[in-house]
């Protein structure tokens, strides 16, 4: 114990040294992430864990950027897109986003996937004035809070818009429907339900029963049984993939054959295929959902130049990626919009310039979106997509029908 004083001296010296290391770093002119030959974007997606299927949105976007780079990039700059694995855990999203901003010095955060993950980094990015471009979530707040968080913008139609469109459809096509709703117990499920009720607009068709489930639950069997006993003739599934499949399966097991309406997230083709239990489960047939992307499995687009380009890009720049996965198409659609934005920034792209461009988007030629769907924003309007079509599930897959619907928030 005789060496104790030495410890304190050492400690004091150490603290002094440590503190003197904290001198400010020098700042180069121009915004981070921009060099004469490159633009760096970064974001997080779940590459592992329960939600890893969603990582296709990054794979698709990355492949599209590589294709653009091969053709010379944007204004002579190559677009580099660095995406990291946050395992769908917001704490990881925060750490990795700070890494992208502070260490990798990205120009903007792009295409980060998930609602809570994007909520977790939103105040940080807005205070630092780093654009949070095209958050991959339909949470209404990313569009609605544009005044508070001007650096943040979502991409796909808000969950309220989707619910509204389905409500409108029910009101017109099934005016006497009694609707039972199974919804995830979070803002995602709630937004959809709010939208549905708004779309029904107090007509005769109405929601007669609603059941929630926790995202951590193991199954939704009891909820479906309760909904069946409510006497409803229509089932609205506002769930994530696993629970959407279960809803179909349990309804079938209980001998309930409702007409089903469902939202985009829980109705990808591969989900429907699983839910159909190899053709055994007839409940899936006739289901109605909304759609805004070209579905690569829809024979209607088999000769479409954009889907042909999609297949070529994926084969060349994302080897081994499943071309049937519509999330890849989403990635390319969002990458297309990004390239369009970057082109508008001119010779010296800045973050402020990017946000100004975000506030005045009018892209009508995104080839990966369904014809007629435009990407439109204005100051204070951060809902890029608010148009969609309906689709109905048949034995051969989803079939788009009807005319374009536009949501006015």
């Amino acid at each position, binding site marked *: 114990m005789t060496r104790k004083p030495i410890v304190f001296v050492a400690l004091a010296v150490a603290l002094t040294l440590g503190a003197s290391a904290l001198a400010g770093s020098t700042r180069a002119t121009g915004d981070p992430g921009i060099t004469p030959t490159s633009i760096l974007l970064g974001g997080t997606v779940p590459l592992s864990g329960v939600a890893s299927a969603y990582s296709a949105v990054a794979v698709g976007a990355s492949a599209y950027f590589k294709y653009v780079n091969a053709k010379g990039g944007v204004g002579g700059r190559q677009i580099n897109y660095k995406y990291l694995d946050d395992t769908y855990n917001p704490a990881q999203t925060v750490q990795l986003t700070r*890494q992208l901003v*502070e260490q990798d010095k990205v120009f903007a955060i792009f295409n980060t996937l998930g609602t809570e993950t994007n909520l977790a980094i939103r105040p940080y990015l807005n205070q630092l004035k780093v654009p949070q471009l095209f958050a991959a979530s339909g949470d209404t707040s990313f569009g609605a809070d544009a005044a508070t968080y001007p650096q943040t913008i979502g991409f796909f139609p808000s969950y309220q818009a989707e619910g509204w469109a389905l409500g409108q459809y029910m009101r017109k096509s099934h005016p006497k429907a009694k609707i039972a709703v199974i919804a995830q117990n979070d803002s995602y499920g709630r937004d959809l339900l709010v939208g549905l009720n708004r779309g029904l607009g107090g007509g005769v068709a109405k929601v007669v029963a609603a059941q929630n489930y926790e995202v951590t639950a193991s199954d939704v069997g009891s909820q479906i049984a309760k909904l069946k006993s409510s006497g409803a003739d229509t089932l609205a599934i506002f769930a994530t993939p696993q629970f959407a499949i279960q809803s179909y399966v349990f309804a079938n097991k209980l001998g309930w054959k409702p007409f089903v309406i469902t939202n985009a997230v829980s109705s990808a083709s591969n989900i429907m295929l699983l839910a159909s239990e190899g053709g055994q489960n007839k409940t899936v047939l006739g289901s109605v959902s909304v759609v805004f992307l070209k579905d690569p499995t829809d024979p209607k687009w088999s000769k479409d130049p954009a889907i042909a380009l999609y297949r070529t890009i994926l084969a060349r720049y994302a080897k081994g990626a499943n071309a049937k996965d519509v999330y890849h198409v989403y990635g390319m659609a969002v990458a297309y919009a990004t390239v369009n934005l970057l082109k508008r920034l001119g010779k010296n792209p800045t973050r402020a310039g990017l946000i100004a461009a975000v506030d005045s988007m009018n892209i009508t030629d995104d080839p990966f979106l369904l014809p007629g769907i435009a990407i439109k924003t204005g100051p204070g309007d951060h809902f890029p997509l608010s148009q969609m079509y309906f689709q109905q599930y048949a034995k051969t897959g989803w079939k788009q029908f009807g005319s374009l619907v536009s949501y006015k928030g």
Partner: protein
Amino acid sequence: MRRTATSAGLFAALVVAIAVLPKFLTDFRAQQFAYVAVYLVALIGLNVLTGYTGQMSLGHGAFMAVGGYTTAILMTDHGIKDLWTIPAAAVVAGAAGFLFGLPALRLTGLYLALATFAIAVATPAVIKKFEGFTGGGSGKNLFGVKELTGGIAPVHVLGWKLNFNNWLYYLCWTVALVLYVVAWLLLRGRTGRAFRAVRDSETAALSSGVSLARYKTLAFGVSAAYAGVAGSLFAIATTYVNPDTFPVQLSIFLLVGVVVGGLGSLTGLIAGAIFIEFLPLWAQDISKSPGAPGVVYGVILIGVIFLLPTGAAGLLRRVASLFRGR
């Protein structure tokens, strides 16, 4: 006395190394090392319980959640400065651990592991259930809240200007080193002996007059209090809590960290904490295809356990005995 002096000398060297480390790190790396300190606190706590007292816990992520939420709720809803919420988190989580320790007295070995695992699984759902209190799935964001000391503006400490990352680094390491010493003092004395007696043979401990109930619940309480402090620091560093920030995997990672660091030893735990913080990042650098980081992580973990069955502490002991020429 000579051993104590050597230990003190080594500890001083460690403190110096930690204090000057940011000089050689990029700003951002300092933040990652702050997380190492956070995990170190949790690992010390878990080692008190698992390594020293022999009680398995697969639920320490839940006690971290209790600490993290204590901090977040006190800061956002009660206007309490972040630093003052750290002891509060220790008390709340410690109480939770103590209370859990009472029924856990009846459980041993695998059954205790399962019971603690159940806590880890149930915690996110419970947090979501009480939405008005906890913020539900959307969680609580602390960035820009005035109770948060760090932020975009630099922090002034004793005349020094620290940016956010360095502030986190020095805050977390100060707490971690203080708690390290506290654990060392606790474990080297009478209490530590009792803990080890319980671990080695409950019958023998009982016949020597060691109260099993008292020391097991004490170990649970101390251990959970450490986890609570770790959770509190985690919330301050991450500036965000929601149920998914304390997933089931966190509890498992902590156990992995203790095993990698070395059960029943404090020195190796820094290696365990580094392992928890950096291995997932390294795994990503090796491969990015979906699902691959998890596989790489698993392979490296198996390799480490295979090569270092006694953890980093065991390796240190072997190196030390080489120097002593034995």
